[in-house]
């Protein structure tokens, strides 16, 4: 659902005020450190209630103010212009974050995610290719959560059980462990099933997209390696946990389960991460985000809003062209550019261009 306007108040270095973004493509052109990424971060906040840069609320509030507020209006594509737009407000004051849809406060951040999800392509994504396994779990959990709030609930429940179980292991509360095992296995198996479903969908998608953009003739395969034996039933898994009890008690933590699942990329029989170049890693992360956007559209029948933070900069002209043509149909797309980049070439009818300088946006 395309954004129509965005209003900032005390957010990072962005000047307070309302910005019109009612265009299919919005370009933000400016030198580094002027506020382009902050703008995308604001949009991300308005769709997820948090930052994609791992920043906490205190950091995004303009220094010394102790608060920030963001407001966006958006409208379903093709819907009547005289229909009142959807309004989302995210504000933070006195260390409390409030998210509202129109006048109605949302009780849970997950209610926000379904309204207007954005897909961000940013530098931090690089860790999906080369970072810790936790980063890839984050990516695929986010993907699943985008299309199913049930998955978010499931993951939260699993994490809560895991926390209780780890506390019981640490404190040596053996008498309750078998009951926590049962619950861990129950939610864990559900998570594994969901993840396997995503793997089946993404495997082909990623292979095709990677080749389409890179033209390297190198096939990429996504593998999902659960920490628990894949074909084990619930009872077998409960037994499996019981057998490792003494080891886990000694270490005071849960050594297996979906929190230790791995997502791996293979190419020609070898682990991709070990053999690929920086450029290939970068390309893989872009492909992952395209696949995420495609998956979202395929599952929900809705088009996402895409946010590109300096990504074209790192691609050679050929890849840039192919990357842009591989992009899924989006409700709207925001791009950041340095002034020296050939952004004029990507401009099409209805593109809105803003020059960003010292947090100020000008036509």
């Amino acid at each position, binding site marked *: 659902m395309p954004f129509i306007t965005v209003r900032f108040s005390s957010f990072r270095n962005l000047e307070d005020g309302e910005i019109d973004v009612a265009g299919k493509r919005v370009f933000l052109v400016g030198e580094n450190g002027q506020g382009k990424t902050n703008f995308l971060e604001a949009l991300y906040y308005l769709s997820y209630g948090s930052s994609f840069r791992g920043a906490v609320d205190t950091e995004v509030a303009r220094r010394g103010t102790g608060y920030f507020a963001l407001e966006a209006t958006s409208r379903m594509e093709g819907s009547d212009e005289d229909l009142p737009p959807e309004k989302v407000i995210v504000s933070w004051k006195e260390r409390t974050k409030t998210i509202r849809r129109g006048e109605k406060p949302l009780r849970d951040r997950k209610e926000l995610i379904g309204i207007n999800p954005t897909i961000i392509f940013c530098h931090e994504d690089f860790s999906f290719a080369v970072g810790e396994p936790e980063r890839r779990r984050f990516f695929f959990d986010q993907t699943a959560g985008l299309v199913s709030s049930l998955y978010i609930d499931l993951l939260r429940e699993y994490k809560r059980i895991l926390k209780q179980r780890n506390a019981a292991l640490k404190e040596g*509360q053996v008498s*309750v462990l078998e*009951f926590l095992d049962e619950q861990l296995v129950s939610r864990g198996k559900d998570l594994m099933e969901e993840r396997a479903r995503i793997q089946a969908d993404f495997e082909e998608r990623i292979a095709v997209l990677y080749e389409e953009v890179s033209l390297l003739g190198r096939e990429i395969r996504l593998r999902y390696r659960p920490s628990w034996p894949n074909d084990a039933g619930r009872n077998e898994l409960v037994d499996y946990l019981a057998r490792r009890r003494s080891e886990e008690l000694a270490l005071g933590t849960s050594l297996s389960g979906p929190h230790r699942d791995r997502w791996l990329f293979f190419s020609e029989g070898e682990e991709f991460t070990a053999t690929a170049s920086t450029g290939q890693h970068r390309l893989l992360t872009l492909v992952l985000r395209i696949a995420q956007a495609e998956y979202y559209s395929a599952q929900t029948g809705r088009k996402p809003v895409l946010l590109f933070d300096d990504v074209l900069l790192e691609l050679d002209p050929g890849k840039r062209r192919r990357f842009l043509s591989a992009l899924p149909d989006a409700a709207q797309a925001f791009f950041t550019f340095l002034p020296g980049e050939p952004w004029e070439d990507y401009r099409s009818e209805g593109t809105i261009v803003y020059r960003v300088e010292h947090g100020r946006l000008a036509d």
Partner: protein
Amino acid sequence: MKALEELVGLLTRLPGIGRKSALRVAYHLLKTDQAYAEALAERIRGLKSAIRFCSVCGSYAESDPCPVCASPARDRSTICVVEQPQDVVTIEGAHEYRGLYHVLGGLISPLDGVGPEQLRVDALVARLRGGEVREVVIATNPTVEGDTTALYLKRLLEPTGAQVTRLATGIPVGGDLEYADRLTLARSFRGRVRL
């Protein structure tokens, strides 16, 4: 104003009351007539001595055993296990259940350092020893801690021969499917019953 500050300090220790609410209450008390403030103070002072634990079920009451445990009209073959004394009041309000109660005084939560030993579990087992109890209804909340406690009790009580049941979870009565959250809906599907 030391007296006011001290009162506010004490009030903020109450559940659900922050500094702002505490200030509002304190100023309200200043404004209100003396008789009301004294009646309130008197009730607070008398509360602990007037109300005690029922030595059978662990609920609060003015007498020991409590009226429910003492009543000959209650069904002695059923015990409903709840987390806290307030839950007894809630269930009694529905006028549906005619059996006895047992208050655990918490839920198993290793994160908070609460294990079965901290709960009134032994007392429950002792109550089942007579063989009179045929069903134990576990009425803990459908949370991770409530589930763990229910699973623990089920295993513990099975050898006594009593049937162990748990309250159903699902769509609220008079509720709308459209407004049910998805987790509730998913659980309702799993717990569907034959018509």
